[in-house]
């Protein structure tokens, strides 16, 4: 094992998959010479050359369309969209084209595309560079949505995403890019569609994703001092959602809090809450509570009031413990 940063874990995954498979190529704005806006693709141009590391114009629709067309012919593109907010610039290609191509043409095509995009707030990047849009894509049949919280998961999930035969929206959190964690020296994969219990507990389940996993773990540490043992589930993959891991945990704890950084309204917390209520109301001892951002754009200057945090999660847990 060795310690590495989240951003380096991403870069390692790209390096390894490009070395392994000639069909893998990287495409996006500034991915080549500059090595990516956040340096996720640093060194790839030197290692694999201009043929496989493609700098593009600022043309998000063309980047995604290119990836779709190339993937339909059997290549395995990894497209970088510089900020997750910019995914909205190419929504037709993502939603009407990429997500529906296989179904619409009766299974004629397989689209192994990965679209990497950094989302999330915390860097004072303002309302157009800070959003968490996972629920938008999770709502679209045909897409998989992945959102790693740790360097270990980032690397293993990205490698699995590249090898997956479906379009994957791979949402990195840019405030986590500098975070450190242990990863093995040898090759490993983290399967898509499998959540990870990051902390075992018996009293309450906290389901979280991306940066909120760390907030949930902090909250759990705090709650433990008061004798409340929270089980923290890191979704890792938003869709396909690992329902089993959530159900198993809630069966044990009978209480559930869902935390995500995106605005609370109509978010993945609403889906998970509804799913658990529909499927296992008898097991619940308390209403399912959601922790998320308020229904406002991400402000440049007031992020600390905007971002949900460990305190909010702990408060929600204490509320469900009152029942």
């Amino acid at each position, binding site marked *: 094992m060795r310690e590495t940063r989240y951003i380096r874990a991403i870069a390692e995954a790209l390096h390894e998959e490009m070395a392994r498979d000639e069909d893998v190529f990287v495409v996006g704005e500034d991915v080549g010479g500059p090595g990516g806006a956040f340096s996720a693709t640093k060194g790839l141009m030197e290692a694999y050359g201009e043929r496989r590391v493609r700098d593009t114009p600022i043309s998000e629709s063309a980047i995604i369309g290119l*990836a779709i067309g*190339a993937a339909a012919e059997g290549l395995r593109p990894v497209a970088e969209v510089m900020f997750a907010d910019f995914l909205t610039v190419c929504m037709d290609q993502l939603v009407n084209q990429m997500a529906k191509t*296989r*179904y619409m043409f009766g299974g*004629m095509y397989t689209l192994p595309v990965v679209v990497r995009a950094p989302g999330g707030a915390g860097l004072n990047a303002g309302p157009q560079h800070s959003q968490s849009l996972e629920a938008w894509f999770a709502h679209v049949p045909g897409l998989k949505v992945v959102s790693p919280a740790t360097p270990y998961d980032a690397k293993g999930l990205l490698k699995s995403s590249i090898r997956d035969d479906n379009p994957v929206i791979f949402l990195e959190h840019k405030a986590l890019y500098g975070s450190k964690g242990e990863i093995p020296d040898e090759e490993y994969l983290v399967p898509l569609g499998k959540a990870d219990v990051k902390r075992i507990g018996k009293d309450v389940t906290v389901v979280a994703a991306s940066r909120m996993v760390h907030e949930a773990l902090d909250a759990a540490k705090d709650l433990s001092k008061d004798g409340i043992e929270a089980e923290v589930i890191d979704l890792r993959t938003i869709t396909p959602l690992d329902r089993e891991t959530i159900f198993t945990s809630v069966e044990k704890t009978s209480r559930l809090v869902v935390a995500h950084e995106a605005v609370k309204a109509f978010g993945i917390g609403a889906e998970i809450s509804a799913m658990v209520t529909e499927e296992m109301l008898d097991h619940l001892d308390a209403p399912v509570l959601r922790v998320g951002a308020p229904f406002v754009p991400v402000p440049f200057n007031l992020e600390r009031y905007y971002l949900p945090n460990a305190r909010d999660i702990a408060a929600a847990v204490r509320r469900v413990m009152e029942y």
Partner: protein
Amino acid sequence: MVNKEELLRLLYLMVKVRRVEECLVDIFSQGKIPGFIHVGIGQEAVSAGVCSCLRERDVVFTTHRGHGQALAKGIDLNRFMAEIYGRRDGFCKGKAGSMHIASREAGVAGSNGIVGGGLPIAVGNAFAAQYRNEDRVTVCFFGDGASNEGTFHESLNLAALWNLPVVFCCENNGWAQFTPQKVYMKLQNISKRAESYGMIGVTVDGDDVLMVREEAEKAVERAIRGMGPTLLECKTHRWLGHYVGDPQKYRTTEEVEEVRKFDPIIRFQKYLLENKHVDRQYLDGLEAGIKMEIEEALAFAENSPIAPAEELFTDVYA
């Protein structure tokens, strides 16, 4: 120079496309096909002229008004018809219908319901050919309306920049749905835009199949030889409405009648007759043969079952 065999092939493709689309109008009006369909009657010279110079391995991206483009590329008529009927034996198991028809065997990558949506994907298809050093060309059909979508700009810029083996074929019928070209753009010739991307742009009379063929051949040749993409604008006429059943209140009766004078099939038949390539008897025989093909396709489609309910859940993911 197009030899006699190829001349006859062009005629066959044009007449086949026309008769198939007339048949589609007919059966749609009888309520035999669900949804809605878009036909390109009057525009046959573009599909035939362009697709006739492509090889099997070359790939076309077609539009919502793309029956002609798919048929001219050689898509199997039986399975084409079954797809339009929404039946199991259609190319896409009936899930695509008229608007999304595709066949990999025939090199028909798929038609797109989003105006301009296919352009960047066609660029990706051409990129794959270049990446793997494959000897093939991608043709992307789109309409005049699509040339005002952002994807047109993004795709042509990127294709020119990377010298990709692609031909952008603008089938300009003068109408963006219900709006005529003069209302939505200042330029008359869309091909003029090519220069701004650093590629060759050509405008041809899209109702003259030999002119279309000649310029398409040159464009395909350039693509094959690594000389990059071409914007080929074929100016043609849409005889009917945007969709079948469109009352066309936005057009005058005179204009609707006027456009029929440009009939690319009558024009080409006249040329072939005058140059003694064909006689009346040949033309009658051609019609009879196509009629039989269509009848067979209709029977094939109507006898094909609708996919079972379980099919709803297949092919969402690989």
